[in-house]
């Protein structure tokens, strides 16, 4: 029998669209209306059939897998906990407690995507706003180094360029190549790769009417930047969505620092905001939870018994590339698929515990795999939207799988027992 669930939240990307209508037949989602292609795939491909955990490829009972995972992590001298961007804040909170108990290094996928934006935020501040404010008030929308037409397909319709307001707002795209987003833009500025900082510093100077001698910046004539600076100053409300084109190119946090400084200065003459275009569903929540629990947003080391911050030192990419972890707990992430090969190679060589609702490259090489429920499908939890607004996810189907939070809590309890000298019970 088919039933319909309304107002479902899609946890696929940072948009967290909360207007989906989902049709459920038994334990499978058969339709996800209003969802983008990414969301449809997420809802329709999920198989909630209970699966047994695996230890060294062998299916075992849940408690045995937890005990083996606890043994591996407590025996490690330098354990790494990584991932957390596609799980709920409740599980993230548990992961922080586990890292504290283990003295582990804790990092999220933030360090790989928008970590530089967080560093810039800490350095110069972030003049932000909510997506609702952008939907209602913005008349100048700039997409810099991002391609939401592909990565966040409903971003335009729901937040940045809603059809009802489309004629009254100007869309500008700054990117190194034409994209699906630049196709719908009113103004496209194709810049040379790696020239973002030059352009942003020049825009800051132009906004303040400071003289520049260069004729072209980033491969674009100065007149175009003067035009953009004029639009930025004269708009009613403007916003810049910053993508990984800024955070992953040369300059990284310096690029974002210049952008946030530019936006802050624009607020002297109009209303302007900047917003990192967060990718994973709850990567913004991971920053929030780590910050309220440890004081730092990512790349935290508990080795000394207290949290220490070390982007570039305690980031998973660096820790793994330098061979400085001897065990890893991967939560709701697939680092083997997206880390640089130098880091992925080391991950293959150390004991790995993977907590994930789905099979991935990482679960295939993990010594212990704990299959859990999926937030937004068969588990309830809280996610943070890219603008920092928390949204509650409700389950649309029922399942017998434990949640990430429950798995981590059991792992934590087992670690406490092992640390206290008790023999792990199977």
């Amino acid at each position, binding site marked *: 029998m088919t039933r319909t669930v309304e107002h479902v939240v899609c946890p696929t990307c940072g948009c967290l669209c909360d207007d989906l209508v989902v049709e459920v037949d038994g334990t499978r989602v058969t339709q996800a209306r209003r969802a983008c292609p990414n969301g449809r795939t997420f809802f329709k491909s999920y198989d909630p059939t209970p699966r047994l955990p695996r230890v060294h490829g062998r299916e075992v009972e849940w408690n045995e897998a937890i005990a083996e995972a606890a043994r591996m992590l407590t025996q490690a001298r330098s354990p790494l906990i990584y991932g957390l961007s596609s799980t709920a804040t409740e599980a993230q909170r548990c992961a922080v407690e586990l890292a504290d108990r283990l003295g582990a290094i804790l990092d999220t996928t933030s360090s790989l995507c928008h970590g530089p934006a967080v560093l810039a935020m800490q350095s110069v501040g972030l003049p932000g706003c909510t997506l609702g404010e952008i939907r209602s008030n913005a008349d100048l929308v700039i997409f810099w180094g991002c391609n939401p037409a592909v990565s966040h397909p409903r971003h335009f319709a729901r937040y940045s360029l809603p059809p009802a307001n489309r004629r009254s707002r100007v869309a500008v795209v700054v990117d190194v190549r034409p994209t699906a987003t630049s196709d719908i833009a009113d103004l496209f500025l194709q810049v040379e790769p790696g020239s973002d900082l030059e352009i942003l510093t020049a825009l800051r100077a132009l906004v303040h009417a400071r003289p520049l001698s*260069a004729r072209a910046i980033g491969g674009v004539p100065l007149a175009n930047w003067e035009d953009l600076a004029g639009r930025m100053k004269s708009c009613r409300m403007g916003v810049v969505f910053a993508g990984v084109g800024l955070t992953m190119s040369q300059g990284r946090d*310096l690029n974002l620092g210049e952008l946030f400084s530019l936006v802050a200065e624009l607020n002297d003459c109009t209303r302007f905001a900047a917003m990192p275009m967060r990718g994973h569903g709850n990567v913004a929540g991971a920053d929030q939870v780590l910050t309220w629990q440890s004081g730092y947003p990512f790349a935290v080391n508990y080795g*000394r018994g207290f949290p220490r911050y070390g*982007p570039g030192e305690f980031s998973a990419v660096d820790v793994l590339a330098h061979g400085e972890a001897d065990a890893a707990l991967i939560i709701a992430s697939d680092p083997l698929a997206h880390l640089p090969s130098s880091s992925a190679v080391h991950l293959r060589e150390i004991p790995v515990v993977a907590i994930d609702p789905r099979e991935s490259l990482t679960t295939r090489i993990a010594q212990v795999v704990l299959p859990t429920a999926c937030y937004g499908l068969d588990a309830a939890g809280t996610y943070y939207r890219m603008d920092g607004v928390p949204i509650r996810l409700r389950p649309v189907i029922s399942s017998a799988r434990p949640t990430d939070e429950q798995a981590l809590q059991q792992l934590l309890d087992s670690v406490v027992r092992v640390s206290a000298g008790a023999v792990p019970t199977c």
Partner: protein
Amino acid sequence: MSATVLQARANLTLPVEADSITPDRIDGLQQVAVGNLPILYGREWAPLGDLFAVSGDGRADLVLEGDLTHVKRIGQGMTRGTIAIHGNAGLHLGSQMRGGEITVDSNVGGWAGAHMAGGRLRIYGDAGPMLGSAYPGERRGMTGGVILVEGSAAARVGERMRRGLIAVGGSTGDFPGARMIAGSLFVFGQLGPRAGAGMKRGSIVSLGSLASGVLPTFQYSCRFAPGFLQLYLRYLLRWGMPVTPAHLQGQYQRYTGDINTLGKGEILIYDQH
């Protein structure tokens, strides 16, 4: 024996935090006490003697031998004495040091000399990123002392430095002297792109070539032979840096910026014509 010798017992691959290896901590200790100093090996404290063979009682002069690529924070906060490292050294070498001297035969990791306030750090190999710079969230990097690198330095040398001198015999990576508040940065090889981004004051001196032009927020000022440079260059020559007579007598193009901040910084480019 005039120096305390610490020989790494094996190739260390997991991270070791050895901030207890400073002349301040070791000088005056007996050999056993030196071996009992705590160091963090991964997430567990271990006696220094477990990872290093200690020769001699504690002195103000230390010699470290072996590959110390994963040994971090050597000489952190030291105020006196010397440390000679025969091999590579890990991250944060000599960070927050206020006096004394560290010499390294080979390469060092990132953040060497970060927040350094005094003393001298001499690297005969290459330096990692963030040499003499500030830690995330800090307003000021190096505030005094001298860092000499014979090889090259990676990105963001001297970021947010407030005072002191950094000289690099080879090339630098991106953003040398970014957000510099004051101080002096000399580069004898290729000066990396986007030098001085966001700098307020201070001098970046390029004695070799430029990876790219200066940022648009720097303005050409003049071509001249700055008198103070001779003083610096003579010191650097004495310290073994590759200063030539032409550097001493040559003309320099001066660019000022970054106009988005205070705009009192300068990039001096040796004019080879």
